[in-house]
């Protein structure tokens, strides 16, 4: 040891070197350690949008929020690069009907009290509160209270910033009776002014759709509290950018860099994802690991509660819901969600250069694709927030934009995948894709809402469809429901069947022109302090427990109606009465594929067809009031509204009214009756006639007449005859199966239709060839009755059949190869071959061609007429065949004629020459 220290002391440079080395090593260790720690801490948070630049958050004065501490203004913040005025000004999400505002009832097809086609102004029983028009004596919702209640479903901007006259809300004066500056205090019933300066306005909220985790609960809470200008700031809560401290919003300096811009890791700007859209529109479940659970008829997700649609790629069998037959439900909620499409893939921004396509009507014929479009940068500066939309029944806002979105045909080619479907074009024309591809809803949906009564929470009494048991409990069995099929009038004028849910609502209206009774008035009528009014309890409480349960809360007697109406009148309301309304809701999502789609013909082509399946609208009708369909949907209501004994209200669509003729369902009863009658009549007739002949011949055996063998029928004649026989019999058989698919369910409807068509084609060819033969060979002469003496001869022949046969008389006319047909035969075959057969064939061809030549077919009466004729002719053919076969037994021997038609040679009775003269 000593030697080492001596050595070190003798070489000072070694000391310096070793100390330096040590220092370097230590520093290196620190650096490495830091790096290791950094690695251990995990990678830096990935910016959601790698190319979006950082930016400062500005308030409505244009100042950085860090300096002013104020609420963020999306218009100013995002407006630094994007044209926010343009965006807000061109968006029906923001405008929500403000642009089409009118006086109550002015818009066509609207209710007498509706003010616009959008959620700002169009009343819906769902929310019930009524946005008051100007100078409304009974103020319900002022603009400010509209924002507080319905604003949660509104993105901001539009009516949340501007008045109906176009001024900024925070710049208009308070005028008495003006709903824009005053609100109804629900507690006191007083109309109080609203201080827009203090509340601020709600600018269009970019963060709601364009950030990855917007805090919608905080936003809704801010709106409900009336602190409108903070709503957009609240959306950023819990993202690290802003915090809520003692009910105040405080910006976190740590989220900003030294220049006052947001740090890049906090810039999480993105295209709207399904979850963003789902915040307002409907339930979206994208979480791969967590099972989906839905409890109750939850009204927070509007589209889900009105239709039962849920957008999720999860299999039904993997959800956390108590679905009926859940183990077998291996399908996903929605095939497009499963295949990872986004809402914006179909509901794109209309000037998005990726999706933009020129409308067919303006596109010149020589172009199939026009590549000229907005540049990406231009688009990002002025993205049109008018989104492509469909043709839903319930949404009337921005009608000019209906059907701008991708429909199924934009992406799918139907022909190759539907080769198995006969009459493809006809099906596709009559049915929308959704009809067969959304056969069943698996979640529950609203069925009826009864605002004629109130629960103690000031809620209506309502009922859900598709769920058994207490809907609020997770143990309730969710059975789902089959949507009703109604005709929908598309934007292009075509009418198609599409699936819907229908919600029936009842509510009190009063005054003239009508308007719904305000909630506050309903509360005053129903409640007394915190409980129901004593009169009401007395009348409604049937089991005497002092409470009104769901079953008791029904106006099912005139007495109850009068009581409530009376109490409303006492409040000063004029002519309060109950009104009922039925609103259809389109179903376009929760599409399925494969084995879950309707492929069985008999679902529609049978007596229990789904096309005319009745749909339960309501379990009862409050006040016995029959509801009316809303007038502004694109659905056509030409079916039957009726009640059962139980009081349930049903709607049954009608094929006849829709102009549809569904094979197997819409049979003309009178054609069947008439034809059946004819058939049975013939059967009876020959039973009697033949019976008498048989008995007669048993009693007195008939002496065999003298016969000679004559070659009566050539090979071709026989072939033509028998081919026709077999084909016609087969046509009748297959036709019967098509006519009554329920009775003959064992056969595959699809195959029978195809076989029927093939047989008809064979018959046609056979008939044409036979006609050619008969004309060119001259044989046709035999079929043409000679006019002179026709009637006499016909009567003679008839008399023979009715009397002569029994008297064993000879045939009045000798059958010769040159003259095979007696007059009766001539006239019958004339009718069969020249009238009935062509008629049958023609109607058949037109039925088949209903998809090829729709205008010709409908011009000739359409399927209802053609089908009836076709059915009737078929019956007559059947009757003819019976008669014909029977009459062949009237030859020299009972089997002589049939043998002749098979072998060609006939044993003819020998006629005396005198009798021969009588024939010609």
């Amino acid at each position, binding site marked *: 040891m000593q030697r080492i220290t001596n050595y070190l002391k003798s070489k000072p440079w070694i000391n310096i070197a070793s100390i330096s080395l040590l220092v370097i090593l230590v520093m290196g260790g620190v650096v490495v350690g830091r790096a290791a720690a950094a690695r251990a801490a995990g990678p830096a948070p990935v910016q959601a949008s790698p190319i979006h630049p950082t930016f400062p958050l500005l308030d409505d004065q244009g100042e950085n929020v860090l300096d002013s501490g104020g609420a963020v203004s999306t218009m100013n913040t995002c407006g630094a690069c994007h044209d926010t005025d343009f965006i807000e000004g061109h968006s029906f999400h923001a405008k929500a009907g403000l642009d089409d505002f009118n006086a109550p009832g002015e818009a066509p097809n609207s209710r007498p009290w509706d003010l616009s086609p959008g959620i700002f102004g169009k009343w819906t029983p769902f929310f019930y509160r009524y946005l008051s028009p100007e100078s409304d004596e009974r103020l319900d919702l002022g603009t400010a209270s509209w924002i507080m209640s319905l604003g949660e479903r509104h993105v901001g901007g539009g009516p949340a910033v501007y008045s109906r006259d176009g001024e900024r809300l925070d710049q208009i004066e308070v005028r008495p009776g003006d709903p824009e500056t005053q609100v109804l205090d629900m507690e006191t019933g007083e109309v109080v002014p609203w201080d827009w300066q203090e509340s601020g306005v709600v600018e269009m909220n970019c963060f709601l759709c364009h950030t990855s985790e917007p805090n919608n609960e905080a936003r809704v809470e801010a709106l409900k509290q009336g602190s409108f200008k903070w709503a957009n700031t609240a959306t950023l809560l819990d993202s690290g950018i802003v915090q809520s401290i003692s009910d105040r919003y405080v910006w976190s300096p740590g989220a900003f860099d030294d220049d006052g811009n947001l740090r890049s890791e906090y810039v999480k700007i993105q295209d709207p994802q399904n979850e963003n859209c789902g915040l307002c529109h409907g339930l979206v479940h*994208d979480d*791969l*690991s967590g099972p989906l659970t839905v409890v109750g008829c939850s009204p927070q997700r509007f589209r889900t509660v009105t239709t039962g649609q849920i957008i999720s*790629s*999860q*299999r039904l*069998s993997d959800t956390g819901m108590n679905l009926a037959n859940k183990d*077998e439900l*291996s399908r*996903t909620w929605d095939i497009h*969600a*499963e*295949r*990872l499409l986004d809402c914006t893939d179909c509901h794109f921004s209309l000037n998005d250069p990726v999706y933009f396509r020129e409308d067919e009507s303006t596109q010149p014929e020589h172009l199939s694709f026009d590549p000229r479009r907005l540049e990406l940068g231009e688009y990002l500066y002025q993205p049109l927030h008018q989104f492509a939309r469909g043709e839903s029944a319930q949404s009337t806002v921005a009608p000019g934009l209906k059907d701008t979105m991708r429909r199924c045909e934009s992406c799918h080619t139907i022909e190759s995948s539907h*080769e*198995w479907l006969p009459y493809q074009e006809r099906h596709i024309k009559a049915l929308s894709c959704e009809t067969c591809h959304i056969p069943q809803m698996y979640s529950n949906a609203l069925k009826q809402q009864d605002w004629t009564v109130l629960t103690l929470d000031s809620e209506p009494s309502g009922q859900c469809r598709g769920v058994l048991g207490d809907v609020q409990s997770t143990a309730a069995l969710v059975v789902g429901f089959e949507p009703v099929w109604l005709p929908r009038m598309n934007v292009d004028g075509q009418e198609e069947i599409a699936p819907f849910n229908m919600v029936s609502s009842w509510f009190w209206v009063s005054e003239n022109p009508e308007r719904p009774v305000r909630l506050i008035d309903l509360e005053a009528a129903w409640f007394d302090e915190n409980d129901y009014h004593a009169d009401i309890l007395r009348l409604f409480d049937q089991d005497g427990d002092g409470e009104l349960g769901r079953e008791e809360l029904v106006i099912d007697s005139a007495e109850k109606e009068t009581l409530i109406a009376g109490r409303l009148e006492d409040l000063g309301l004029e002519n309060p009465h109950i009104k009922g309304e039925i609103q259809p809701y389109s179903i376009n999502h929760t599409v399925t*594929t*494969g084995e879950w789609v309707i492929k069985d013909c008999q679902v529609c082509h049978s007596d229990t067809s789904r096309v005319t399946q009745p749909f339960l609208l309501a379990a009862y009708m409050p006040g016995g009031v029959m509801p009316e369909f809303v007038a502004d949907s694109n659905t056509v209501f030409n079916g039957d509204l009726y009640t059962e004994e139980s009081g349930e209200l049903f709607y049954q669509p009608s094929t006849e009214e829709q102009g549809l003729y569904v094979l197997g369902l819409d049979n003309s009863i009178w054609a069947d009756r008439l034809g059946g009658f004819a058939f049975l009549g013939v059967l009876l007739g020959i039973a009697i006639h033949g019976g008498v002949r048989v008995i007669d011949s048993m009693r007195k055996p008939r002496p065999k007449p003298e016969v000679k063998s004559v*070659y009566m029928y050539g*090979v071709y004649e*026989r*072939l033509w005859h*028998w*081919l026709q026989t*077999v*084909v016609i019999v*087969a046509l009748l058989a297959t036709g019967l199966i098509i006519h009554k698919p329920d009775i003959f369910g064992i056969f595959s409807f699809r*195959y029978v239709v*195809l*076989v029927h*068509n*093939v*047989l008809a*084609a*064979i018959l046609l060819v056979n008939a044409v060839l036979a006609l050619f033969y008969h004309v060119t060979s001259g044989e046709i002469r035999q079929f043409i009755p000679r006019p002179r003496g026709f009637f006499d001869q016909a009567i003679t022949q008839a008399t023979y059949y009715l009397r002569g046969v029994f008297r064993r008389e000879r045939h009045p006319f000798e059958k010769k190869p040159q003259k095979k047909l007696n007059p009766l035969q001539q006239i019958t075959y004339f009718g069969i071959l020249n009238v009935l057969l062509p008629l049958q064939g023609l109607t058949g061809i037109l039925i088949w061609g209903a998809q090829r030549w729709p205008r010709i077919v409908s011009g000739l009466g359409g399927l209802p007429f053609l089908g009836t004729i076709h059915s009737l002719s078929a019956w007559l053919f059947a009757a003819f065949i019976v008669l014909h076969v029977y009459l062949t037994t009237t030859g020299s021997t009972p089997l002589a004629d049939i043998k002749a038609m*098979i*072998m*060609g*040679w006939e044993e003819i009775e020998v006629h005396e020459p005198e009798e021969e003269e009588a024939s010609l």
Partner: protein
Amino acid sequence: MKDFKYIWVVGLFFTLALIIVPIVIFIPGDEVSAEDPWDSVPVHAPHTDHSDLMQGVYETGSDVTRACLECHEDAAWQIMQTVHWTWESEPYEIEGRDEPVTIGKKTSLNNFCIGIQSNWPGCTSCHAGYGWEDADFDFSNAENVDCLVCHDNSGLYVKGNAGYPVEGVDLEAVAQGVGAPNRDNCGSCHFVGGGGNGVKHGDLDAHLSHPPESVDVHMGRHDFLCIDCHQATDHVIRGRSISVSLDFENQAYCTDCHAEDLHEDERLNAHVSAVACQTCHIPEGAVKDPTKMLWDWSAAGQDIEEDEHTYLKIKGAFVYESDFTPEYYWYAGIRDRYLLGDTIDPSISTNMNPPDGDIGNPDALIFPFKVHRAKQPYDTVYNYLLQPKTVGEGGYWTEFDWEQALQLGSEVVGMEFSGEYDFADTEMYWPISHMVAPAGRALNCADCHAEGGRLDWLALGYDGDPIEWGNRFQEGLVSE
């Protein structure tokens, strides 16, 4: 013609032909139905009742074997050619190694109980023979073959140390109750590999004895026996395990019965060129009973509370998992196998049986794996993994002395032990092919392609999600 007596026959035929031919031509037939997978499933030979045939006094297992061989003369000889007997593969040429190598339980290390050498009596209780107690086992003696372990249908047969039947087994009853191997026969060893139920494979455990269809659709819904897929001709059993085989010769595949493009959906069929059947159809491994995912030998020897699934003094600490999500890698075969004596880099995890495959190999498919990670002893001077003696005298399981155990073990295998040891990280890859879920529970698009999905595209070699970027052929990632 006029006088032809049988003109009506001709007429009938002609008429019917004129009708039937057009119908057949114009009616579209159903799509050609896919080959029926049942056509490829073997028909079981009828069972022969051995109660009258095997009457006798059997003292030892070999007594039974002798009796079997009286009729089944070739059976033992056939077994002796197979790996169930030899526990050693044929020699392989491996890239990167100068000489051909053999692998197998006989000599290879794994990262479970590590290796059988020096531990034979304990490990060879699963040998298809009797008496492999030490290195001098006579592999040529046909009477050492154990017929009963595979053919006992009575359920009364249990093997113990060195493969001998345990005390109390009624050999006569067992011998009379023989038949074709059922799931319990194979499972008596393969379900409990690694020292307990479901420890090793991740897709084989005692639940497969009588599984519901939700656990395995073949064995559950259709009551498949192991031998229905792992068919045997002359006792050569189909199947290859990544741990003891280096090739795919005589491998059992899904496509032995199922057509590759059997999905009705075209989009699903398009996946077949990059994704193995197992990937989508086995969404989770170890569906009911947990499997061992981590084995830390370095923690062994402590006197703390023991629990089969977390800690045992003789073995160390473990982590078990059930319903685990497999890890996904490209797989076209085995690239290499760790052999005794190979040096390791103790600072990184040693992959003992790396699956061969990458995105560029057109034959490679994305496969689900159970990856078992362990810490096992290695020589810090020579930098290779060591074979410890665990069973028997001086073994770790009695003495709890690593140095002694490693010394004894190294002597037996003929390797130098420096005396200095530590524990290195190792991993082994076990492809999952059992516990196939019913078709309705297969993975769907979102499971891989949605955000948070199972596949790490960049790690697999893609530029990004193939839905957006195109598949690997379109992207030009595949080398021809």
